């Protein structure tokens, strides 16, 4: 029996799931790269990133640059990666259940 309470509600939202997915593919992402990769508006993206940061899934660091404005770098935290993997495992369980 699948325990649906284990399904992380913060990740289980289309936009945040897409962000977590991209963050899982590389060690760190800049805001602009995430925006380009996901085709999201600035406001939407920042809201989701803040929600994920508040949940402890995403870290935000400000990187100083010599010639340009400092940029924010986003990365999955250890907790975030574990939560993402657990989320994937539950999705797979649900899919397998449907096949039985």
């Amino acid at each position, binding site marked *: 029996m699948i325990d*649906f309470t284990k399904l992380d509600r913060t990740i289980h939202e289309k936009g945040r799931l897409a962000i977590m997915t991209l963050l*899982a593919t590389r060690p760190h992402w800049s805001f602009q790269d995430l925006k*380009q990769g996901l*085709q999201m508006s600035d406001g939407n993206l920042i809201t989701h990133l803040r929600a994920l940061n508040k949940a402890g899934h995403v870290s935000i660091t400000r990187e100083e640059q010599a010639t340009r404005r400092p940029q924010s770098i986003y990365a999955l935290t250890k907790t975030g990666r574990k939560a993402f993997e657990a989320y994937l495992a539950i*999705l797979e369980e649900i*899919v397998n259940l*449907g096949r039985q």
Partner: protein
Amino acid sequence: MTSPEAAAEHLKVIRSLMERANTYRAISAPGAFVGGLLALATAATLARINADLNPGNGGNVFTLAWLIALAVSGLTNALLLARHAASRGEPFFSPGMRLALRSLTPPLFVGGLLGITQAVLHNQPDQCAITWILCYGLALLATANFAPLSIRYLGMAFVGSGTLLLLLWHLGACPPDIPDTTLGAIFMALTFGILHLVYALSVGLKKHAHDEAG
């Protein structure tokens, strides 16, 4: 609650996003096709004009000819990549492109410089060709973490061919009556010409089969 269908859809979206974020093809198939044809044409021209060359000038002409070929094929590839990016609604300098440039630049810069030194300063166009073949293969392999399998195979083919040609050259297996410029042009035709054409045809055929399958 999440239905199995919704869960499968979520997994499909995750997979497609991961593939898109992780894969970047730095050489388009049509770009490789044009580059391959151009390499064969450049090699043929060099072999033909070799008889008229001053023996001490072969390295300079060889370098100039291949730099022009590089500029034309590089520009063609960039235009094709820009068109492909525009059709997908992505910027030309996408994260994938930046990652590819960061990986490709060091081996290409070192190989380019070393090869030009061998050809121009030491008048050894054949050695220059082997250096370019090996370093180009290494550059392609440097993108292995995010490139499709075909680019990795192309990189391996270049490194393998370069190593083989280097061995043959050192063992004296290359015909001694062929001038260095012609020998270098043959090396370039066999690799930058033929290997690029094989790559372009195999990627093009695979894409065609994929499109046919719907």
